[in-house]
């Protein structure tokens, strides 16, 4: 009898022990944060979102190569004819070149990695809505959705087909889940619709917070322009509708930003001062914060970069670009955004220079613009049918850039050309020009003199994706 008693006693102990174990085995690593720990409070969600901002401001994405670096090389903005130049092959659209290919692969890999981060955040936020105070649930979720659309749209612009040749071609996957299931490639139309769907939701969520702040107490809310805010989402929708050639909606969205009254063009006094705001930061709908911009700038846009890395162009090119011979010499973008170094006459694009600026210039340095106020005017001008309105919209920008106003009798084609010229001038060092050429399926890329074709406009999807994506 005692035997039985004893064994029962032990058996019980064993059962007790083992049931208590599961929790004990749940060790929290020190070096890392377990995801269940991260989702414990609002701060964790903010941190995860901030992680995405940090990730997309990396040099492989908006911090350098997706904007001022390679994307702008593809836009034909720089002289990379030197055969030892790191962007030499990219300059002639040789996407099979190993260096170029590696940079392109990074767009894809880092882009989708950022999307995975967003998806994991989005997968957990709804069930923990109660953790958030004020509008923060709306803001975090809205920004995450907005970023997911932004990244997908930019990946589509890079790796998708030329939109003018049809939007029903298979392009890239639109990923909304962090799982190891392979996602199928969607048609361009499907991707654009998915972007717009996310953006619509994001816009609804973010509508609770439309202020554009700078320097308020709460760090998370204090730099609206550097978050995927309500206006950025609206502006991005305008951009996407235009890419989709949905002019009506594009116009609507662009006007929503213009009429929103939250943004203004920069005043020349802020650009011509000792500490100039070369980024025109009040005009940013969305710009990423790039912590190490000074060194990136030094490695690209200064003599310190060396001849094999420096990105600038010949004086003749600059003069043509800014139409110096035909009244463009007063353009603030020509006057204040180019600099020489020492006694050398070589001009360098100076949008991101900050040697002569103080750290105290806070809001006007270390940013890379992704969406600008001026683009809303270009989009609206392109989308409206009224020639008068086109002219008015363009002149609104020209006036703020120190350019003479356009005459009222220009033809639609001439106005379109003016819009193109604005894209060239306005987005120098920002990487948007290449996408303009691609959207327009331009026959030629002005800066490089190379004929536009899908071979130029469509970046190759990485081999790894093709090899392992059987979906």
């Amino acid at each position, binding site marked *: 009898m*005692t*035997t039985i008693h*004893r064994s029962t006693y*032990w058996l019980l*102990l*064993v059962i007790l*022990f*083992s049931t208590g*174990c*599961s929790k*004990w*085995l*749940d*060790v929290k*690593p*020190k*070096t*890392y*944060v*377990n*995801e269940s720990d*991260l989702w414990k409070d609002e701060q964790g969600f903010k*941190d*995860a*979102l*901030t*992680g*995405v901002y*940090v*990730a997309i*401001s990396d040099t492989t994405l908006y911090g350098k190569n997706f904007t001022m670096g390679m994307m702008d090389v593809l836009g034909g903005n720089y002289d990379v004819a030197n055969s030892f130049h790191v962007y030499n092959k990219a300059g002639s659209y040789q996407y099979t070149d190993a260096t170029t290919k590696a940079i392109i*692969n990074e767009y*894809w*890999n880092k882009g*989708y*990695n950022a*999307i*995975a*981060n967003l*998806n*994991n955040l989005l997968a957990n936020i709804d069930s923990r809505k109660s953790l958030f105070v004020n509008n923060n649930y709306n803001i975090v979720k809205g920004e995450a959705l907005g970023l997911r659309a932004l990244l997908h749209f930019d990946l589509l612009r890079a790796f998708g087909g030329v939109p003018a040749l049809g939007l029903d071609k298979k392009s*890239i*996957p639109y*990923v909304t889940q*962090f799982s*190891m*299931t*392979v*996602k199928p490639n969607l048609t361009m139309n499907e991707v654009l619709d998915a972007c717009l769907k996310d953006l619509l939701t994001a816009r609804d969520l973010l509508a609770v917070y439309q202020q554009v702040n700078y320097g308020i107490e709460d*760090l998370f809310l*204090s*730099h609206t322009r*550097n978050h995927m805010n309500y206006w950025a989402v609206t502006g991005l929708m305008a951009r996407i509708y235009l890419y989709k050639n949905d002019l009506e909606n594009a116009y609507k969205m662009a006007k929503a930003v213009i009429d929103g009254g939250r943004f203004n063009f920069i005043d020349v006094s802020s650009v011509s001062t000792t500490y100039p705001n070369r980024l025109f930061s009040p005009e940013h709908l969305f710009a990423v*914060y790039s*912590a190490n911009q000074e060194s990136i700038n030094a490695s690209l846009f200064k003599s310190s970069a060396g001849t094999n890395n420096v990105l600038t162009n010949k004086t003749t090119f600059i003069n043509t670009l800014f139409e110096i011979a035909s009244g463009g010499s007063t353009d603030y973008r020509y006057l204040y955004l180019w600099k020489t170094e020492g006694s050398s006459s070589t001009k360098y694009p100076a949008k991101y220079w900050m040697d002569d600026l103080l750290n105290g210039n806070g809001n006007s340095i270390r940013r890379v613009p992704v969406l600008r106020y001026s683009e809303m005017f270009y989009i609206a001008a392109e989308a409206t049918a009224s020639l008068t309105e086109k002219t008015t919209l363009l002149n609104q920008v020209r006036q703020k850039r120190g350019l003479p106003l356009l005459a009222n009798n220009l033809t639609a084609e001439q106005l379109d050309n003016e819009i193109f010229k604005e894209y060239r001038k306005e987005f120098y060092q920002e990487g948007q020009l290449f996408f303009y050429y691609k959207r327009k399926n331009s026959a030629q890329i002005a800066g490089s003199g190379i004929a536009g074709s899908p071979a130029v406009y469509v970046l190759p999807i990485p081999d*790894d*994706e093709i*090899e*392992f*994506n059987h979906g």
Partner: protein
Amino acid sequence: MNLTALHKAVKGRRTPRHYVSKFAFALALTICMLASAGTYAQRVTMKAQNVTLDEVFRSFKKQTNYYFVYNLQVVRQQKRINVDFKQTALQDALAACLKDAPLEFEIIENTVVIRQRKTNPGNNAAQTEQPLKGRVLDESGKPIPGATILVRGTNVATLSDGAGNFQLRNVPNGAWLVVSSIGYEKREMAVNGRTDMGNISLLTAVENINEVVVTTGLFKRPVENFTGVATSVTGEQMRTVNSMNVFDALKVFDPAMRIPDNVQFGSDPNRLPQISLRGTNNFPVQGASSGIPASGADFMSAYQTNPSMPLFILDGFEVSLQKIYDLDINRIERMTILKDAVATSAYGSRAANGVIVVDTKQPKPGKLTVNYSATLQVTAPDLTPYHLLNAADKLEVERLAGRYVGSTPSFQQEYDEVYSRRRSAVEKGVNTYWLSQPVQTGVGTRQSLYVEGGDQYLRYAVNFGYTNNRGVMIGSGRKTYEGGMMLSYRRKNVLVRNQLTVTGNRSDESPYGAYSQYTRLNPYWTPYDSNGRVQKQLDYLTTPGYGGGTRVANPMYDATLGTRTYSKYFGFTNNTFLEWRLRNGFKFTGKLGIISQSDQSDKFLPADHTSFINIVDYTSQAYLERGSYDKTNGSFFSFDGSATLDYNKNIGDGLFFATVGVGAAEQTSRASGMAVRGFPNTNLDEVFLGNTYLRNSRPNGKNDITRRSSMFSSLNYTYDRRYMADFSFNMDGSTQFGADNRFAPFWALGLGWNLHEEAFMSGLKGTIVDRLRLRGGIGTTGSQTFSPYMATSTYAYITSRDYLGMLGATLLSYGNQNLRWQQTMKKNIGMDVSLLKERVIIRLDAYLETTNDLLLDINTPPSVGVSSYKENIGKLQNRGLEGNINVFLIKNDKQSTFWSVFVNGIHNKNEIKEISNSLQKMNANNDKTDNNLQTKPQLRFEEGQSVNAIWAVRSAGIDPGTGREIFITKKGERTYTWSAADKVIVGDALPTVSGNLGTNVSWKGIQLGVYCSYQYGGKMYNQTLADRVENADLRFNVDERVLLGRWKKPGDITYFKGLSDLDGFPVTSPTLATSRFVQTNNYLEMESLSLGYLVPDKWTARWHFKNTRLNLQMNNLFRLSTIQVERGLDYPFARNINFNITTTF
């Protein structure tokens, strides 16, 4: 009590295995008892033809319920008889049975004692007529019935009765009594002419009679009843083979244990061996690298380089490889290698690679005894694997290879100058033997002191050990200090034991640097300048017409500087045991083990070190950053607790053992390191004196916590000594696996059949066959050799960049919640045979081990967000045969004279069953890599092939017409073009059979042992032929074969390519992986030759020394091999001679 008594006796009766030879002599004394609870019945009935006495007694036992005590061996030697009794009185029946046998019997109460009949009674004058009386009691004073009282050295024995009383007749005055009972410790006492021994109290046994058990570290089983595969080696046997190195000693006894020679690091005492049991259960590339070395005490630390490493258990607790490597071999009582699923079942989740169990010595009671052992090791470098050119020949080779031919007259003049300079050096007699410069004949030592003593209640032991293991490279060595203390206290049924060990270690690397630096230096260079000082630069190699050149540094110069390359650790281990013997065959054991260790490693090279010789521009930043200091600190802490309950019981003819237990363990491993640069002066040799951190570096580190909990149960049932079964079941949980699969069950089932106990074998029994046992086992085991946290999605904070003052967290990896334990299904069948009175002992096993669910990376399309994640996907299989034969050519137990020979061997075959796409990609990448990497065969894993397959392009030899190599494509066509696509399997590094053989002779205290290891049928890519002959860099010294058999002119049929081609230009294209250099790697190596002498105590009695033993060992004396290849690239191999003396006082 009687019931338990029986099974112990059964256990004790059994012949120990050959590897417990120490106890072979005890055999004659073993006594069998058959007993059951007593009722009174004294008449027996039995009718049978041709039965053994044993069978008759068993039958009587059943009918009468009397105890039967007899020497089984003696009884079994008797002739078979015919019986026919019908309700015959027991006495009469026994008398009838024994009338023709030289046996007599005595019935004392309800016990029948059968013993050999006195041949000449009354001859012993010293015998007293009066019977010797006594009473056997336990600690609490309760009588012990059924205790055996034996007169030492005779067959005179009796049993105590129900009140513990006994009587013995014919006991000589000077005799010793051996009093024993199951569950109690044996006690010996001198009679000293007494007629009443009074109360003899026996202590509850700490351990079951441990000479006949298999210990798995967590529980013990009688060898006879165990169906698992285990090899047990006593410390004494190991010390005979090698008194310095635990693993070198152990590997001789089991062919399944493989420690391949480390071709790279030779006999470097600071390189831990790469051990595997029965092949590899993982892909070699799988070890996850964490970037920073973990503490040496971290169990996981060695898995990173050897994912097939077995689990090590020291005194019941898991320890790291380093702990065993640095363990004083003199402390080892026994090592047990557990191989199959049944044997390793208690370790379920950790046992896939097998388990090596180490038990250290426990103090024996008695007056204070000091055991001292001193070993002197002389270690000398073995430079025979190197076949390098001397100065004159080297210069000639250079000349013949056209290295002094210039394309223009001015270049030619430069060449001529270099040549004449070197020529004149050679003429002057410069012929530096670089190989001997950095090496020494090291003299190492090991001192061990072990003091033990105590009484029935309190026992103690203290040990000190110091090992100075000198390496053959000057300045390299490994010093270990060890101190320990053990106390055990027993009161009634409770035993408490505590064991504390403190270990300190320092390992020094040679300031002379890597040995490979010396094998390449030209012998016409001299290490000293004209003033006899060590020069820093030996030569400045230039090519006429090109600017710049290469500075050839003299690595000996580094030894004149104050470099510091060492690592050290200090730690302690404390193990506490509690044992509580409950009634009814229950025993509770609680254990708690704590390991703590802190590690440090330093590597300091001043600016003057030759590794910075090429940085000469003093204006550069790099110049200021010459000199380096890399420092790492690590710490490790673990605790491991377990509680087990053992139970055993007899049920009829069956015997039942059971163990259930729970355990939990936690390990915390921390490490941090930093790299500092800029140490302009040798004296600035502290890390804080550096100029700057290594550019773009940050301190690195890690902090891993792993926890494990396990429940285990094991049942063993033996029926009638003929059939046995083992069954075990475990549940293990670990932090390393997915939340959905945190616990995993592991099980094992073993069956065994003792054919020698069957009636139909009885004719052979005792004469031809002593033992014939068949065993089979099947079960699952797991392995947890992986970095923690793979199963959860984890985030890391990005600290290097902010986002407007906010820190962001980013996903590190996809945590696969479904990750399961990697499971190895192990199947084993085997047999144990012992023939001709233990003269021939054979053991054979066949196994099949399949590792399923191997954790491998799966490559994903990057669009899912990551490029790979871990999944249970791979499958590997090992199957093999292993065996061991031990034959005693001479065996005379009485005089302790014997001569035995043994051979063991293993044949293992490895097959990849399934791989993931990441490995396929690795294969493709390995083929893509540039030619410089193709000069050696690259790893390649393909399903259906062996992990150890050598992939290279088939060669048809050297074309006599052109001197170029002809390759055979996959399709069989001949071509001059080498292409990675044409690679096929050209051999397998796994040998057909490998193992050990040896012999042992013992005669009058002199013991001679010879132990060799061999391998047959394995292939090897002779990298020396590729690197040092054909692809030899002729600027430096090369293998002497560089000129032998080389193609010179059309028509030459040669083995090697030409140095120059048809047109006379030097051949510059490297020789890529070719079947031409795949050679058979058969070898026979003498591991150990040992000569021992046990000094008779009478010689040493004057100094009160006992058991004094002198031992001489020579290790790695010679090696016969079919392949001539440079071994010991960065550190030479060594040969050792050990002198060892052990004594007790």
